[in-house]
């Protein structure tokens, strides 16, 4: 995870044929590459797509996926929606915040902990997503093991 160069961002914009209606897709690609939308990209996107900075800023602020702060190296999302609540996701979330010594939305020790509202894995609740991969039937022991594996992969 790092900031992106102007050249990289121009390349991404070109991949989408510099079409302004692809702004959400372009931002999604930026986030998939570097984890967030660094503030200096907003002006460049506005310039190259011929949009106002307010337009771009509005879109960045609107969508949950477009983080405006740099996340940790690992992103852990815990589903908070109803099906997972029915299987103890609130308790799992408490366990996670206690174990990681952080709250939802926080970043510490290279981990960003986020809520997510449904991963579509509702027959295997509770579900979590770690670095873009979905895991099901996650109890506290499995959560700890998944975190160990995540750190072991560094």
């Amino acid at each position, binding site marked *: 995870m790092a900031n992106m160069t102007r050249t990289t961002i121009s390349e991404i914009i070109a991949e989408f044929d510099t079409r302004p209606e692809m702004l959400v897709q372009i931002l999604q690609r930026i986030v998939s590459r570097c984890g967030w939308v660094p503030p200096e990209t907003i002006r460049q996107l506005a310039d190259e797509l011929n949009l106002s900075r307010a337009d771009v800023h509005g879109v960045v602020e609107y*969508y949950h996926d477009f983080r405006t702060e740099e996340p940790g190296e690992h992103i852990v999302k815990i589903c908070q929606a109803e099906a997972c609540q029915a299987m103890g996701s609130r308790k799992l979330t408490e366990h996670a915040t206690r174990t990681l010594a952080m709250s939802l939305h926080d970043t510490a020790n290279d981990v960003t902990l986020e809520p997510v*509202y449904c991963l579509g894995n509702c027959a295997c609740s509770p579900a979590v997503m770690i670095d873009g991969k979905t895991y099901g039937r996650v109890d506290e022991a499995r959560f700890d093991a998944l975190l160990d594996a995540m750190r072991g992969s560094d």
Partner: protein
Amino acid sequence: MARTKIYVPRETAAVSVGADEVALAIAQTAKKTATDIELIRNGSWGATWLEPLVEVEVDGTRIAYGNVGADDVAGMFEAGLINGGEHERRLGPIDEIPWLINQDRWTFWRCGLINPLSIEDFELHQGFKALEKAFADGAEAVLETVADSGLRGRGGAGFPTGIKWRTVADAPGDQKYIACNADEGDSGTFSDRILMEGDPFGLIESMAIAGLAVGASKGYIYLRSEYPLTHSILSRAIASARDAGWLGNNIKDSGFDFDIELHLGAGSYVCGEETAMLESLEGKKGLVRTKPPLPAISGLFGAPTVVNNVVTLASVANIINLGGERYAAMGVDRSKGTLAFQLAGNIKRGGLVEKSFGVTLRELIEDWGGGTASGRPVKAVQVGGPLGAYIPVEQLDTPMDYEAFIEIGAMIGHGGIVVFDDTADMARLARFAMEFCAIESCGKCTPCRIGSTRGVEIIDKMIGDDNKGDQYDLLVDLCDTMEDASLCAMGGMTPYPVRSVLKYFAEDFASFKES
């Protein structure tokens, strides 16, 4: 000896509980034991409770093994997996499992059966037959067949698909669009995902049929970003269809042009609302539009647009193949055909059950679902996602039928069924409904944007026993305002789960403890 086919699903739920590790173990064990196998990554049959579900083909019969872990694989090979040998994980032939064969598979029949990324396999299983028939019969015949089928929108609103398509076909304009809503954000739903991961060409074919019927040369799929595996499968399928000449200009010399662009959402629930989705497809904030105009008249980039859910569209190919009457013969009253019910939450046998309308909630939860996973009594069932009412056990005999559900103040929505056992704190779930609305509201209309936050505050006071009587009246009044004055279902239906808790589970407000 021919190579033995072994199937291991590459589908989000199966992979989330270890299917990739199982596939790897099978490949490694086969190599070590010099066993000649062909490992096929199929979609899921929808029996999520049995995942990872491994099948081995023996003399044309697929023998299933359920809940297989990577550490089971060596033992399964020793027990003669290749010949369908006896093992504690063995379930028997896949086509004899009652949970699967007692369903009415119309839309999902290829899911699990085929290799989702093999266009040859798809064509061996009726693939593109419906599109060829549509080329031969013409747009008017397709429109009539879809109208005859009685198919209604499976995204939740239940609007008749035939009428929507006819409206777009009749609307003036050179450029028209098909916009497939794959922003499956409701908790407890995953049928779109299972379809796209298990039969992506089926969706592509049906979208092309829709394009032919209404005169659209371009389709969009708006896929939620929470489905990365689906995105990978779908984008590969679209590329293969293009390479094989099933997408693009002059498809198979029919003179018909149609292509599909895949867009990713960005974590906004309200973008599942059709007009917010169109805004997002245009690269903007997902703000709900006022209606009219309807998207069928003025939709994407102002052009006439068919906005349909994945399952709605995917149901069309078989309707063209088998006829509208045949589809309409299933179901009850005005709820024709089948729905993919999704059993989720605290349920023993969760997964996807495609069944004709008219099946009762109790049959789905008890006969298919086997009751709760915890073994405790069912307390409440939320049907139709976070905007659906919490249904008490006394109403479990309600048949799955759009109108019957409206009568009890509930909705079928996208067919998600989330079960809660008797430990569920309903006051907390009512609070969550308002909280979720506050987090996800697009902010365009006041009742939703402000009402949801006020709703959380009022419920907090009720829970804290602060002047409960007055707060109750205030909450009912707020629900009225949100229902009557919100622009879309987000604010307009958030009161449904809240009111249902007040009506059936009011006693839970006394027991709340903030943790």
